[in-house]
């Protein structure tokens, strides 16, 4: 299948007063057209930074210092500001964690839609744009009359659906969803993930679903990537990640998720906390927490290898 996105040796650094935070450290990653990729890791592992880098939305002092991000073969890192502006929204869309702060409280919902459309399509008729917005609301399962309401009049779940509608109105082919359900209740979360699956088929989207909870992406994702301390530690088909996790970090992460369907009286825990990315541990970043750490892990960084169809960075393989 065609790769919509190819990331090669990406380094993203945040220089701060006490040193440099290596938020993304030598990540190479490929995304196939039309797939749903779950990007999983703990807070501070670099998953959101990676998402922001793809859109060149990094906040200063964050900087891409090395590597390439090829979107349909074009390098986003080397694009001019104007080229990136054209790309954002119209080709690559992003939805954020908190739908309350991502909508402007002083704008009606239709104004949000119209502004988005007029920014990218000069000369679009207002009536036509409004029609499009109405159609979008229908495919989100919201009645079109609500276009004339303000964000505070909508519930949390609806606001998040409006966010995804704003993301999709210009028909992008890549959607980056950064923890879209964290602020939602379980039932609304389930509704939202169902909607996302529908929209993916309808608009033929490629989706990067960033989350800290592997359980959220289990049924939706085709493949899953696990990040730890700025490194991509394992990438594989979703089924395979759950059945046969190779990296010790993936194994630890999986066993700490509560599973309501299983009779397990106790959760397994993974001791320790994520590494300090200003002074990351030498060798494999996971070795201080790894139950299977060997001597080589403390000195040399493992390379990415292919094993049982997984891409895995670990000295065990």
């Amino acid at each position: 299948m065609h790769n919509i996105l190819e990331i090669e040796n990406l380094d993203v650094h945040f220089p701060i007063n006490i040193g440099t935070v290596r938020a993304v450290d030598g990540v190479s990653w490929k995304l196939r057209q039309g797939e749903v990729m779950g990007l999983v890791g703990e807070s501070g592992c670099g998953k959101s930074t990676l998402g922001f880098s793809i859109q060149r939305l990094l906040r200063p002092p964050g900087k891409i210092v090395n590597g390439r991000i090829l979107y349909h073969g074009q390098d986003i890192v080397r694009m001019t500001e104007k080229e990136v502006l054209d790309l954002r929204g119209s080709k690559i869309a992003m939805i954020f964690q908190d739908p309350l702060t991502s909508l402007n409280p002083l704008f009606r919902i239709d104004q949000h839609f119209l502004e988005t459309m007029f920014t990218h399509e000069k000369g679009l008729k207002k009536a036509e744009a409004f029609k499009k917005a109405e159609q979008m609301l229908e495919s989100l399962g919201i009645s079109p009359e609500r276009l004339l309401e303000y964000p505070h009049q909508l519930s949390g779940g609806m606001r998040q659906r409006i966010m995804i509608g704003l993301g999709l109105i210009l028909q992008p082919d890549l959607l980056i969803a950064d923890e879209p359900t964290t602020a939602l209740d379980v039932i609304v979360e389930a509704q939202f993930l169902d909607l996302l699956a529908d929209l993916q088929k309808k608009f033929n989207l490629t989706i990067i679903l960033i989350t800290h909870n592997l359980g959220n992406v289990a049924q939706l994702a085709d493949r899953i990537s696990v990040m730890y301390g700025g490194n991509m530690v394992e990438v594989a088909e979703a089924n395979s990640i759950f059945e046969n996790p190779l990296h010790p970090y993936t194994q630890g992460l999986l066993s700490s998720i509560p599973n309501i369907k299983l009779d397990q009286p106790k959760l397994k825990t993974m001791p320790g906390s994520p590494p300090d990315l200003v002074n990351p541990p030498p060798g494999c970043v996971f070795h201080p927490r790894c139950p299977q750490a060997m001597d080589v892990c403390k000195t040399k960084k493992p390379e990415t290898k292919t094993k049982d169809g997984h891409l895995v960075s670990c000295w065990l393989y």
Partner: protein
Amino acid sequence: MKDLITINNLIKYFPLQKGFLDRLFAKEKGFVRAVDNVSFTIKKGEVLGLVGESGCGKTTTGRLILRLLEPTSGDILYNEKSVFSFTKTEMEKMREKMQIVFQDPYASLSPRMSIGKAIEHPLVIHNSHDKAERKEICLRIMEKVGLEPAEFLYKKYPHQLSGGQRQRVVIARALITNPEFVVADEPIAMADVSVRALILELMAQLKEEFDLTYLYITHDLATCKYICDRVAIMYLGKIVEMGSLEEVFKNPIHPYTATLLEAVPVPDPKYRRTEPIPKGEIPSPINPPPGCSFHPRCHYAVSTCSQEEPDLKELRQEHWVACPIRS
């Protein structure tokens, strides 16, 4: 075992803010029916999970029990004595025995107070122990909750700690007065999955060690499984189902409980849901639907559901359900 907390017909209505004109023309006053006739008991040494979506009144119930809010009506018994009959000194004593762990470890710690000072603060309020003793007790409790090295972290400030460590600080602060009863209000909602498991394990361990009784408030049924003895499911200010963890999980009777259980994300790619997810979202508690308040979202609703308000009935032993069809 004896009942530590008993709640009888607890009601809390919050009056709506009214504009000047509405007041002038004396329009009928509206209320948010946050907690609407809730009764339950918590036995000593038990963990009761209070589960529901945002806005169902679970946090309000927790705060009412601690008298952080005054109820509109109803009674709360602590050790079989009404908390409203307590004298001022008795009430102060009771506050030492009942503590709360808040949801957000970022907002519930003062950024200007060192970790040690924050944990010791309840002792200062209750005027117990001198300075040296306080520090000693504080260091001991910090070790118990896994804030180590305690001496080193004692002088740190919240911004120097990770989210998981902050939540441990909040737990330590709640336990320093040696309470009997702790309301844990979504203690792990803000944490990463891996940190959640650690905090849950810590809470279970501390419960044994300090002989605690918990009211565990959450929207996530999955985590209840690892800590609760009994669960009560709340919807729009009312309890719709209550029973032992096993009963409710294995034989959910109320359709709302069944869908809540169904909506929990399952970490298994091959899993498919068997119950449909309800349409829409939780309605406004200002004008709750008539009859059973879940009927507009219920897949099994019949016409009578909108007419009669169901009572909580004991359908099996210690398994209470309020559903117009099934009870």
